């Protein structure tokens, strides 16, 4: 198939940026979307032009590098996959495809489709862990954890930190990302000691990074390649509220 691509090109963070149009020719069904971009890039390079910068690494939907907007949708038209898992059989001959970076104040564009997502790391730094020093752990089977809790923790822990939730959200909120980590650790007995502190710390860092508020659109869940549920956001809000109250009135002994 032959396609027309409109790709966001931006030389650097301070550049205005604009769409440029390229042809992608002889594209086969079995190619992945990123294989297709590779091909376009090879062609651009041979013409002495700079190829389109985009992030990718694992190419199997797990590292969270490859976020981009494809026809206005984070990670493209298919549900529950990342851009690297999208295959060209989802498109047809003659299609026009618009490709843009994830856009959010807290994700500044660095070049073309590459954005800076280190705000996510700083949200994790604000409490997204269990404070356990190496070597100080008890035997792994000392505390049985009901399978249901372990499974729930896993579902939340599946987040790959891609940022699609932010890109899809009309408020550019990262509450789904933040809530997923808070939920993962709060379903586990090991995570209880720091539970409320964690929720408070991460939520306040979330706001400090310039992510927007959650107004319950649910666009994040739609866009999330790992099917992270918006229910975690309610759970996060409860913990934040509890933490705030505890702080205000002091914890009863």
């Amino acid at each position, binding site marked *: 198939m032959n396609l027309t691509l409109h790709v966001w090109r931006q*030389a*650097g963070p301070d550049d205005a940026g604009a769409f440029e149009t390229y042809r992608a020719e002889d594209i*086969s069904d*079995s*190619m*992945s979307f990123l*294989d297709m971009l*590779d*091909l376009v890039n090879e062609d651009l*390079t*041979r013409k*002495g*032009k700079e*190829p389109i*910068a985009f992030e*990718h*690494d*694992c*190419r*199997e939907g*797990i*590292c969270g*590098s490859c976020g981009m907007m494809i026809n206005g949708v984070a990670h493209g038209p298919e549900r529950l*996959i990342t851009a690297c*898992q999208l*295959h060209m059989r989802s498109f047809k001959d003659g299609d026009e495809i618009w490709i843009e970076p994830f856009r959010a104040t807290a994700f500044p564009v*660095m*070049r073309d489709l590459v954005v800076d997502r*280190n705000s996510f*790391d700083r949200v*994790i*730094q*604000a409490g997204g*862990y*269990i*404070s*356990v*020093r*190496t070597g*100080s*752990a*008890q*035997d792994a*089977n000392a505390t*049985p*954890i*009901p*399978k249901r809790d*372990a*499974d729930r*923790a*896993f579902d939340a*822990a*599946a987040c*790959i930190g891609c940022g699609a939730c932010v890109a899809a959200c009309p408020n550019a909120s990262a509450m789904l990302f933040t809530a997923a980590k808070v939920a*993962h*650790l709060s379903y*586990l007995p*090991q*995570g209880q000691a720091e539970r409320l502190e964690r929720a408070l710390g991460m939520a306040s860092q979330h706001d400090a990074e310039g992510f927007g508020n959650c107004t319950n659109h649910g666009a994040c869940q739609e866009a999330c390649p790992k099917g992270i549920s918006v229910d975690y956001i309610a759970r996060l809000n409860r913990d934040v509220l509890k933490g705030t109250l505890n702080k205000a009135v002091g914890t009863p002994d």
Partner: protein
Amino acid sequence: MELNARIPDHPIDRMWERHRFDMKLVNPANKRRYQVIVVGTGLAGGAAAATMGELGYQVKAFTFHDSPRRAHSIAAQGGINAAKNYQGDGDSVYRLFYDTVKGGDFRSREANVYRLAELSLNIIDQAVAQGVPFAREYGGLLANRSFGGAQVSRTFYARGQTGQQLLLGAYQALERQVQAGTVQMNVRSEMLDVIVVDGRARGIVTRDLVTGRIEAHMADAVVLGTGGYSNAFFLSTNAMGCNVTATWRAHRRGAGFANPCFTQIHPTCIPQSGEYQGKLTLMSESLRNDGRIWVPKEPGDTRAAAAIPDSERDYYLERLYPSFGNLTPRDIASRRAKEMVDSGHGVGPMRNGVYLDFRDAIQRLGKAAVAERYGNLFQMYEKITGEDPYDVPMRIYPAPHYTMGGLWVDYDLMTTVPGLFAIGEANFSDHGANRLGASALMQGLADGYFIIPLTIGNYLADAPKMDVGVDHPAARDAVREVTDTQERLLAVKGNRTVDSFHQELGRILWDHCGMARTEAGLREALQKIPELRERFWKEVLVPGSGATLNQSLEKAGRVADFLEFAEVMCWDALTRDESCGAHYRVEHTTEEGEAKRDDENFAHGAVWEFKGVGEEPVRHREPLHFEHVPLSQRSYK
């Protein structure tokens, strides 16, 4: 080059404990006076940086990724081994040790492997305490499975995302130390050289991938956890960014490179679908527990799988290895698949795969039970190929996957350059000539959490404290060299893309230094690689400048290093004139067609010394002694 493995003189089962006692300690108040550089923040590097930060060292960590959470470790699917014996099925530290030495086909160091097996216990404890959501049984205890042909169930797993969950555990521990101020995290920062002062590693040179700035960073010791080099083959299951640059640059500065030809080819990957493809996808090995591997008996048979009756199918692994069948070790399963495809029995549009068929499993267990076990893998396969494995057998083919070779290290994980350490897949590790499934995560974490944080103190306590700044001549020279190389790459302005060279190199290595190696083939490769390298430096086209984010330039630097490294890989394969584990020399086969070791002449690690680009490197040996696991021939018939 002096190779002293410094194996402590204690009985193997008390060795690590006694060594910990013997090692010198840095007193707690002094630790913050020491700076340690950790390059790479995957499982090994992330765990090391976090733990050394906890201990009080000043850690400077570097990754070329935008975040430590993106490291290639994230992609590990199957699981992590540990000798917990939670299943009560007869496992023990000794058994894991034994299996690993034997599985590595007797080309690893017993002392290190024993310690690895011991530390496997602590890893699981540590991970669970961090909140890693391993699979559990209904009673709430941890679940295990048997993996990669092991006779006991010792593999811990987190659905098909074990690497992801373990890496997130290490990443979170690391970010906690960043918050605490003990670790300074440098992302999008690629190490391009090691700085050696008076024979000791004292720093690194990095390029900031955003601004292009090239600068030196100094420290009292340098730890490399920069992963493996499977991408030398261009097509592999590794993430696109995996490369040899850090270890190769260290090698050029004097670190011995051990067993570079020990590369593992994984049998169950999705076959290439076209020339354009840049990466192959691994399908979990667990599929071989229930899938049956076959090809049409008739070469060139193009009928659909369903139209080929059982009598015209060759279930070749079951035929050749009646007792292990579809679960033969990775190297054997891979080699046999290649033979089938090479002899015209390949299936699929490009005739480049073999079938992995679940028809019988579905009949036996029902579709629901198969879906329960493999549902997500089937889905992933369908997304990629557009074929539904419930109806049409999967197609698989081997692909480069893991590299057992790496920087030579002693018992303390120090390379031949004092003060330079290597951990995780970057060292030549504990896997000998063949790594067992679910053992890489274990090794990376043992190195990172439990070994290096202690052994580094043993080095630092003794090392002369020198004040070497970034203006030291050695640092300035290294910065200048890196800058020159980069300018040369940009200045070629030829007419061929970096990828086209990488692809060509990959083809040479795959053909001649891949699953089956011959003397003639290796000699041919040793002729072709320097020619290709020469053309690279004349014809490569790297657009853009060095002062911005420039992915072509990043790739060009990595491919330039692969083009140098590939030669030593072939030298190693050529001079190891035996077959062992994943290294299969066609000239050395048993009557049954299996790898034939030559213990008399090759029971050693081969350690290479750099002599200049294009110069023949010098081969040294570390003799290996097998006092606990008697040398024996593997047999899977």
